[in-house]
């Protein structure tokens, strides 16, 4: 099992290298891609501006703590925009035109290859670095000193959140094998990402429960921030460990069951 994970990680690194080389052929596109992410970063930081300008706490969190939440959200957006989004948005096309056949013919896991074959290092690096800087600035300004456990915990919950985010976007996309044209599902799933732009505490008890356990969107970027701020309760810490396995398993099962409906219709 571990050997398979390491093998697929090595393949992913090779794919990243190939994608990066191909992007370097079109450097203006690479630069404008980073400019686009900078624009989106501006939009995200507007919520931080509100927190600072309003001069009052948001559900018990001060502006510096809000910066930690938004920073975590920006950092994880790097993973979503750089490693995931283009694969999920492109899945519908390759299923429709039949080029998904080539993925099935490769000696790697089809779910892995279909969802990780393309990457864009521009937004990945830009957002991840910008997000981490925001988290550090927020923590320092809020009076938190350097804490190795905090760094490890934030990194662990960020990785756990990335895994949950991956599973949550793969699950709806498995319908692509049944309905073929699933661009709308991808767009709808994409719009859910923004719910992490503000701390989950603003959504009320029912919203928080749904977003934590049923559709665990808040596990993705709220958990790392809550842990860094020392406000992640033990049951939620346990859920942060379990959620990637639960939803990763569901995503893998749904992928396998969806594959049976793939008709290779475009060929």
């Amino acid at each position, binding site marked *: 099992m571990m050997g398979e994970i390491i093998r697929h990680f090595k393949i992913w690194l090779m794919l990243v290298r190939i994608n990066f080389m191909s992007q370097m052929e079109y450097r203006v596109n690479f630069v*404008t891609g980073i400019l686009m992410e900078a624009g989106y970063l501006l939009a995200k930081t507007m919520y931080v501006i*509100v927190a600072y300008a309003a001069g009052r706490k948001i559900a018990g969190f001060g502006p510096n703590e809000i910066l930690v939440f938004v920073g975590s959200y920006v950092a994880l957006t790097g993973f979503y925009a750089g490693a995931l989004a283009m694969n999920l948005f492109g899945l519908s096309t390759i299923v429709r035109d039949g080029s998904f056949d080539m993925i099935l013919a490769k000696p790697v896991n089809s779910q892995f290859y279909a969802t990780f074959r393309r990457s864009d290092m521009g937004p990945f690096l830009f957002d991840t670095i910008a997000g981490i800087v925001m988290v550090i600035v927020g923590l320092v300004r809020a009076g938190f000193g350097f804490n190795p456990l905090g760094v490890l915990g934030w990194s662990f919950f960020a990785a756990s959140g990335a895994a949950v985010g991956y599973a949550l976007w793969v699950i709806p996309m498995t319908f692509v094998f049944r309905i073929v044209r699933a661009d*709308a599902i991808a767009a709808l799933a994409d719009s*859910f990402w923004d719910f992490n732009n*503000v701390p989950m505490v603003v959504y009320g008890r029912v919203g928080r429960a749904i977003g934590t356990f049923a559709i665990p969107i808040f596990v993705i970027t709220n958990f790392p921030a809550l842990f860094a701020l020392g406000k992640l309760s033990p049951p939620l810490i346990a859920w942060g460990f379990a959620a990637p396995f639960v939803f990763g398993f569901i995503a893998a099962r749904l992928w396998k069951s969806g594959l049976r409906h793939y008709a290779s219709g475009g060929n």
Partner: protein
Amino acid sequence: MPSLAPARKYGKCLSLGVKAGIEYRVNILFSIAGAISPVVIQTALWLVLYAGDPGAIMFGFTFPQMVAYTVIAQLVTRIVRTGFEYDVNYDIKSGGLDRYLVKPIGYFGFRIFSFLGDKLVQGAAIGALLAVSVVVMSTALGFATTAASVLLFVLALFLALAMNFLLFWCVSLSGFWLTEIGFLFEAVRIVIVAASGGILPLAVFGPDAERALKLMPFRFTIQFPTEVLSGRVPPSEMLPSFALCALWLIALAALGRVVWGRGIRRFAAVGS
């Protein structure tokens, strides 16, 4: 060959735009669905910020005014959103623009009337939703508007469409100089939406930045029509605002004409 009367030619372009709008009607649904998450997120945020002090005024808005702004601005953003810049870029890049140069029709006219035709369909659908939202907000939040505000809103919305078209027309012409600009359009769009008050009201940026942004053309695409409908534009500011908007329209149209003139000289129709 006698040339077609302009009204007939561009009337055809308008009807082509209407047909395209009807053909891709599912897009309208997705566009509306895309407005749901920002409205939910921001309403939840404002609920928490105004909690405990419902009469508070934040950034110049009471709670009902802020929620009304959020809903109206999100719907206006969807109405004025462009997409033709990708077609212009494709026409330049693929050389397909040369087809339009030999036709008895102006490319600018073709694009703007097609855009307006498309927006007639979207505007009708989203406008109906906006009307329902206004009724719901009147009942739930005490939001009030007048017939005069609605009429001025329609005028401001029409000017917002023209303004956004001209802004993106100027940006799209960069295709004469750059070959890979897909991401650039999105970068420009998000900055324009933020500077237009499409994400949050401009007052959030602070008084100095707000004053500067109010002199720019961007706010006329989202914040101005939204505030006209909400009755937040004082009568004394109405005429100067419309006049400034008209001045920007003329300036952008002139800029577009100059850039088109220079760009078309570089156009080599490669690929056609």
